[in-house]
C-alpha cells in the first residue's frame, strides 16, 4: 500500500481560510497547506482590521484616546479604559480615590466576565453546540445590562476618565447585580452540564492545540492561555494594581496547556470574577470618585460655572488637553486575554507622543501555526477560538 502511494502523483492542497470564512471572525487569514485533512503548514495573515489606532492617538488629546481604547478588545472595553487611564495616571504620578478604584475593579471584572462568556460561547457555537452559545449570550446580555446601568453604553463603554470616572456608581446597582449574578450562575451551571462533561466536546478540545509551558513563555503567552499551561501568572496577583491586593480570589491554572484546560480556566475565572465584584460591592467606601486636581480632571459642572479657577482649568484642559510631564512609562493590567500593556511617551504637550499597546492576543495568534501544525483542519477551530483573537486589539 505505502509503495503504491509513493508512485501516485499527489500534491498538497493550498487553500485560503479567510479572511471571510465563518471561523475567522475578527478577520484573519490562514494560508493552509494541506495533505488530505492534515495541516502541513499554516501562515497567519493579520492586519485586516488595522485602523491606525496608535497614529490616531498621537493626533488627539490624552483624554480623546479613551473612546479609541473601547475599540481595542471590543468584547471587554472597560478593561482597556482602565488600563489606559492607569497608564496615564502613572505617567502623571497621581492615584485615583479609593471609591474610584473599587468601581474600576468592578468595571474590569464585569468586562472580563462578558469576555469569557463570549469566548466560551463562541467556541461552543463553532463546535456545533449552538444551545450552549445562546445560554451564555443570554448571560452576557445580563452583564451588559449592568454595564449599561453603570455607564449608559452596552459595548463601547467610554466610562473611565484619567483621574476618575465618568460618573459614580448608580443607585440600585448592588441589588441589580445580585439578581443578575443569580441568573448568570444558573446559566453557567447549564453550560457546564452541556459542555464540561460532554464526551464529544472533550474529544474535540482535549490534547488539541497543546502548548508546553516553556514554549508558551518563549512565545510571550499571557492570560488564560498561559495559565492553562500551569503557570499561575496573573498581573492582578503578581503586580497588583487598583485594589486587587485587598480582594480574595484565586487564579485557576490548568495542567496540559490544551484547549480543554483553556476552557476550564475561563469557566472558573468567570466565577472568581463574580466573587471579586461581590466583594468590591461589599467593601465599597464612600467618597469622591474623581481626583481633586482641576488640571487633570474636570471639576463638577457646578464648580465650572461658579468658580473662576475651575473654569480656567476646564477651558485649558478642553482646548489644549491635559499635560502629563515628559517621560515614558509602561503599565499593564490583566486583560481578559492576558497582559494588556500600554507604553506611553509624553513630550509634555497635550497629545501623546506615542501610545503603544501590547495586545495580549498578538503573541497567541502568532503561535497558531505551532499549535495546529500536523493536526486536522477541524482542530483549527477550537484552537483559534480558545486563543480568542480579537481583530480590533491584534491589528489596532
Amino acid at each position, binding site marked *: 500500500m505505502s509503495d503504491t502511494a509513493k508512485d501516485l502523483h499527489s500534491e498538497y*492542497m493550498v*487553500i485560503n481560510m479567510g479572511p471571510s*470564512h*465563518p*471561523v475567522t471572525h475578527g478577520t484573519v487569514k490562514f494560508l493552509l497547506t494541506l495533505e488530505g*485533512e492534515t495541516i502541513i503548514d499554516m501562515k497567519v495573515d493579520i492586519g485586516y482590521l488595522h485602523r491606525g489606532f496608535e497614529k490616531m492617538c498621537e493626533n488627539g488629546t490624552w483624554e480623546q484616546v479613551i473612546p479609541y481604547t473601547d475599540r481595542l478588545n471590543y468584547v471587554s472595553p472597560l478593561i482597556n479604559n482602565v488600563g489606559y487611564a492607569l497608564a496615564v495616571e502613572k505617567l502623571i504620578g497621581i492615584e485615583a480615590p479609593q471609591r474610584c478604584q473599587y468601581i474600576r475593579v468592578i468595571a474590569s471584572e464585569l468586562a472580563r466576565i462578558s469576555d469569557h462568556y463570549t469566548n466560551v460561547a463562541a467556541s*461552543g*457555537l*463553532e*463546535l*456545533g*453546540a*449552538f*444551545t*450552549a452559545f*445562546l*445560554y451564555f449570550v*443570554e448571560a452576557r446580555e445580563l452583564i451588559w445590562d449592568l454595564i449599561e446601568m453603570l455607564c449608559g453604553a452596552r459595548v463601547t463603554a467610554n466610562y473611565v476618565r484619567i483621574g476618575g470616572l465618568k460618573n459614580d456608581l448608580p443607585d440600585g446597582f448592588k441589588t441589580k447585580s445580585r439578581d443578575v449574578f443569580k441568573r448568570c450562575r444558573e446559566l453557567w451551571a447549564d453550560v457546564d452540564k*452541556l*459542555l464540561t462533561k*460532554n464526551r*464529544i*466536546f472533550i*474529544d*474535540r478540545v482535549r490534547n488539541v492545540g497543546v502548548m508546553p509551558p516553556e514554549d508558551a513563555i518563549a512565545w510571550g503567552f499571557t492570560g488564560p492561555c498561559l495559565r492553562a499551561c500551569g503557570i499561575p501568572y496573573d498581573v492582578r496577583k503578581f503586580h497588583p494594581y487598583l485594589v486587587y491586593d485587598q480582594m480574595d480570589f484565586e487564579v485557576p491554572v490548568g495542567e496540559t496547556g490544551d484547549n480543554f484546560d483553556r476552557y476550564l480556566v475561563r469557566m472558573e475565572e468567570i466565577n472568581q470574577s463574580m466573587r471579586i465584584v461581590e466583594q468590591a460591592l461589599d467593601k465599597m467606601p464612600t467618597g469622591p470618585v474623581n481626583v481633586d486636581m482641576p488640571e487633570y480632571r474636570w471639576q463638577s459642572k457646578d464648580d465650572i460655572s461658579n468658580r473662576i479657577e475651575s473654569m480656567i482649568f476646564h477651558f485649558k484642559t478642553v482646548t489644549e488637553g491635559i499635560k502629563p510631564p515628559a517621560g515614558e512609562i509602561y503599565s499593564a493590567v490583566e486583560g481578559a486575554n492576558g497582559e494588556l500593556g500600554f507604553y506611553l511617551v509624553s513630550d509634555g504637550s497635550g497629545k501623546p507622543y506615542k501610545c503603544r499597546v501590547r495586545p495580549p492576543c498578538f503573541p497567541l495568534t502568532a503561535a497558531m501555526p505551532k499549535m495546529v501544525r500536523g493536526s*486536522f*483542519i*477541524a*482542530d*483549527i*477551530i477550537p484552537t483559534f477560538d480558545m486563543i480568542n483573537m480579537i481583530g480590533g486589539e491584534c491589528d489596532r
Partner: protein
Amino acid sequence: MVADLIESIVKILFIFGVNIGFFSPILGWVERKQSALMQDRVGANRADIFGYTLIGLFHPIADAIKVLTKEDFIPDGADRLIHTLAPFISLTPAIVAFAVIPFGGQYELFGHRVNLIIADLDVGLLFVFAFASLASFGAVLAGWSSNNNWSFLGGLRASAQMLSYEVVMGLNIIGVIMVYGTLRLSEIGAMQVNFFDWGIFLQPVGFVLFFTCAIAENKRAPFDVAEAESELVAGYFTEYSGLKFVMFWMGEFLEIVTIGGLVTTMFFGAWHLPFVSDQMLLNFFRFAGPNGAAILAILVNIITFFTKVIFFIWLQMTIRWTLPRFRYDQVMRLGWKMFLPIALINIFITGLVILVK
C-alpha cells in the same frame, strides 16, 4: 384492477402529500421553533398575512417564495451538468424510500383488500438501503462538480462517512432480519402486534446503533462533518443557491422523516398501539358497520404511526441542538472501531438466542 389503481394513487398522493406538502415545509419551522424553545428565544414569528403571524407558520411560504425567486448560481469552472444533477440525486432517494414503509395494516374495504403501504416489496429493507446509498452520490457529486476546495473536502468527507456508516447500518439490520425472518417491512410491522415483540425489546442494542448510524448517514449534527459550517463554510453545498440549495435541505428533512418511519417500523411496533391488535380495533369500531370500522381503524393506524414518527423527528431535532460536532477522524473511528464490533457481537448474540430457543 381499477380498484387497485385507485388504491395505489390514493396512497401515493397521501404519502407524497404528507412528506412534501406537510413534513418538509413544516420541519423547517419545527427546527426553528424547537431550537428557539430550547434556547430561550422566540424563534421565527415575523412573516404575516394581513397581520396574522400564526406563530410563524407562514415562514415556510415566505421561504418558498424567496427561494423560487433567487438567482440560480453556477460557479465558473463548475461541471454544469453534474452540478445541476447532484441535488436531484440527493432528493429523489429521500422521497422514494418511504414507498416501502407501511403506515397501517391490511383491511377489507368495500370488498377490496387495502394494504397500507405503497409498494409491498419482499426486499423492502434492501430497497431502503439501496436508495440510501444512492443519496450519498448526490453529496459526492455536488462536492466534486462545484470547483471549490471547501466543497471538494466536504464531498470527500461525505463519501467516506456515508460509506462507512452504511456498513454498520447494514450489519445492525441483520439482527432485525434474524429476529423477524423477513425483509418485507409490512411483515416486520405485522409481527409486532404483541407489545413485547416490539423491536426495541428484541433488539435494544440494534435500535441504539441503528438510530445513531441513521443520523450519521443523514449527515446531521453531531455527525455533520461534511457540511461543518465552521470548518468547510457549508461543505459540499457551498456553491449552491436558490432552489437547488433547498433540494439538499429538503432531502435532509425528508430523510429525518424516513429515519423516523424506519425506526418506528422496525423497533417501535409500526402502526400498532401497545397491546391493541388490528382485529381489536375492528371489533371496537363495530358500531360503524364493516366499512366504517375499517376506515376508523385505518385512521387510528395512520395517526398512531405518524405520532411515533413525529416523536422520533423530535428526538432527532433535540439531539441536533444539544450536541457539538465530532471531528472527522473521530466519526470514522466511532463507526469502524466501536459500532462495527458491537454490531457483530449483536448479530452473534442474537444468533445464540435464536439457536437456544
